């Protein structure tokens, strides 16, 4: 297939849900977004505004009610083999050790056990867990489990990488380490990324572009291009004057939406 067009395109997408008590809820409205090849895009917005819905639309696990979702110019029809997804919750298989967890992707896709294990060992080494191949997830720390999850995702060599608040459950030091690790892996793999977070500083530290969403139903409020040099060290870039300027500007915009989302929630309660 000769791929044409940007890596990910969402064009005027609307997505509604029918709640169990038969009420229609709009999660996304007239939402448009373009991710160029190799671009790192972050999506920030108030809690529960529909950020995760954008990712589900890209995977094909959810379908838009209106509008188009395209990957490399092709409409999304099912789960694409090019996609990797890192979840917020722990999605490792607790009954498999680290090696078998990382080897899961290639084996699901038809690779032999020996081949999958070889590949898995390589990726486990890249995230620095070679000594823990035979450990089960419950024997690892939260940060190590996230590393396994990254290896499990990257082993499939996804051209499109989706991350749904992947580091939100980690403590702040571990989170910074994982952000750097992710940037390393990404710069080697050259994937196109959508990274959903509610942490604005995380978004600025990682991204080429930051999308700010409105309170639900979500639509794009503003897009900022983050012109900070790469490679970045996330723990240090926070103190860069340019970083602080970005943070101040974007937060001014985001704060209104957070307030609005808060008021909506209070009104509903």
């Amino acid at each position: 297939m000769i791929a044409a067009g940007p890596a990910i395109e969402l064009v005027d997408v609307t997505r509604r849900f029918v709640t169990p008590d038969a009420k229609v809820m709009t999660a996304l409205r007239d939402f448009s977004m373009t991710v160029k090849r190799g671009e790192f895009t972050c999506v920030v917005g108030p809690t529960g505004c529909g950020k995760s819905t954008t990712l589900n639309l890209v995977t094909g696990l959810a379908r838009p009610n209106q509008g188009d979702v395209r990957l490399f110019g092709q409409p999304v029809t099912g789960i694409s083999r090019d996609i990797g997804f890192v979840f917020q919750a722990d999605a490792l298989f607790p009954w498999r050790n680290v090696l078998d967890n990382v080897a899961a992707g290639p084996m699901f896709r038809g690779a032999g056990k020996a081949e999958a294990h070889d590949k898995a060992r390589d990726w486990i080494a890249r995230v620095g867990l070679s000594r823990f191949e035979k450990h089960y997830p419950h024997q690892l720390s939260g940060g190590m489990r996230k590393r396994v999850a990254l290896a499990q995702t990257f082993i499939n060599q996804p051209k499109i990488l989706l991350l749904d608040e992947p580091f939100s459950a980690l403590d702040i030091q571990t989170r910074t380490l994982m952000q750097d690790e992710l940037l390393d892996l990404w710069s080697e793999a050259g994937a196109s990324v959508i990274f959903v977070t509610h942490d604005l500083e995380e978004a600025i530290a990682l991204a080429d572009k930051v999308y700010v969403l409105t309170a639900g139903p979500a639509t794009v409020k503003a897009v900022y291009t983050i012109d900070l040099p790469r490679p970045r060290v996330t723990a240090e870039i926070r103190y860069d004057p340019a970083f602080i300027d970005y943070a101040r500007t974007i937060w001014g915009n985001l704060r209104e939406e957070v307030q609005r989302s808060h008021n909506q929630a209070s009104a509903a309660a």
Partner: protein
Amino acid sequence: MSVIGQTLDPPATLTSPSSLEIAARHASRRRRQVVITARLAILVVVLGGWELGTRLGLIDPFFFASPSGIADQVWTWVTEGTSQGPLWEQVVVTLEETLLGFFIGAVGGVVCGIVLGRNKLLADIFSTYIKVANSIPRVVLGSIFIIALGLGMASKVALAVVMVFFVVFANAFQGVREADRAMIANAQILGASSFQITRAVIIPSAMSWILASLHVSFGFALVGAVVGEFLGAKKGVGLLISTAQGSFNANGVFAAMVILAVLALVVEGIITIVENRLVKWRPVPFDGH
């Protein structure tokens, strides 16, 4: 209470880590000895009291048997055989019926539980009937099975199957439903087909539920087999019981009960070993002592 007291006021001598460890080991050994001694004491008091009561004429051994009478009865059965032939033959027959019923019921329960758990429509259609079937006192079906399948092994196996099936089914179904959504989505995106998801995600995550149900349902299988024999059979421990009942032999009833208990404990032990092998990935539960 004693444990709390120890942690609050450590004796002044316990300063180095190694002496703390030694003290902790001593304490845990002492505790284990107390538990074992107490267990033995209870056994002695209950059996001794029972025996003493019958000797003193407080308990009528004709109705309520006596430990020495039960032991005698077991010994007679072991050495001279029962009125229906050697004891081991009865045990083997009952065990065979129980195990057959257990396996068929368990496999059927697991398969149906997984199929219905994975298919929302089928689950919605059948859920009512399963609730109804589950609330029927299924032992009564034993009579039907005796009429339909005769006095041989088939009727007992059928009753054991029915007893086991619903317990395992309900657990397998629940286990499938509780499988983590994120984990399933993860497998899907990693490239798993529907069949691979069932095999690699659904079944392992339902396994804890299924194994828990196997513990309970082996007891049910045994009840099914024995009650079946009770209702009409040519061989088996259940028949021993009903024969003993017919001849007002209370010792015989209790002796058969002891034999069944030993049987159940042995198989329970085997199931636990198998379980520990299958779920070795599980975190070791935190042990309070």
